[in-house]
């Protein structure tokens, strides 16, 4: 079951995820995978860096933008609508698109990111905030949820060398 790497056996039930994106849509894959992996008995570590870091803030205000996102086709009037960039750039359109997305999420019984994050915390998913990103974008640890750690690239690499599955999202 185990793999040998430099003499160290890697537990197959381990996973790490580098979380680099913090928009309403991109926040889903890391939290869905981390909570599900934890439910399936894996030890999970999430490393939040750059635009993923705000997902650790106590108060999240997640938004989605159709700007430059050709693949974002929202169900509308029985079809699917892609918003032209020139429309997507108008002030207020992001807020509207975010509201639409949140309505779809609710309507389809999809968990909110807040809910998934709570479940991840409850399942003892280890969460590490990137120190450099905190310095760069001026975030303080007391703005973040309790129980997180702060670390850098070496902290993540140490985790990765011991994880069977390593994802970058």
């Amino acid at each position, binding site marked *: 079951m185990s793999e040998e790497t430099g003499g160290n056996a890697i537990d197959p039930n381990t996973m790490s995820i580098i979380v680099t994106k913090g928009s309403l849509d991109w926040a889903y894959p890391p939290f869905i995978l981390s909570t599900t992996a934890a*439910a399936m008995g894996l030890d999970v570590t999430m490393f939040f860096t750059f635009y993923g870091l705000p997902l650790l803030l106590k108060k999240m205000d997640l938004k989605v933008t159709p700007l430059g996102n050709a693949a974002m086709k929202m169900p509308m009037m029985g079809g699917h609508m892609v918003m032209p960039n020139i429309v997507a750039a108008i002030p207020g359109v992001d807020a509207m698109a975010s509201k639409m997305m949140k309505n779809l999420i609710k309507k389809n019984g999809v968990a909110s990111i807040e809910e998934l994050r709570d479940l991840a915390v409850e399942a003892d998913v280890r969460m590490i905030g990137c120190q450099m990103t905190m310095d760069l974008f001026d975030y303080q640890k007391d703005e973040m949820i309790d129980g997180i750690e702060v670390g850098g690239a070496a902290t993540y690499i140490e985790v990765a060398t011991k994880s069977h599955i390593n994802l970058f999202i």
Partner: protein
Amino acid sequence: MADKVLDAKGLNCPLPILKAKKALKDVTEGGTLEILATDPGAVADFQAFCRTTGNELVEHSEEGGVYKFLIRKT
């Protein structure tokens, strides 16, 4: 009759799995958990969940858009 029943109808991926995992904590070893769900993805997911966690998927069925899973905790 299952030892515990979880109604996960109306919930989408991954909530039925996450709630089932939680519900299994209240089931003793050898006991059973019945899950009701409407997410069609749950069919493949509960099979994968059981294969990975070692719990036994005793049976699963569908009636009128509601999927029923019976899991025995091992």
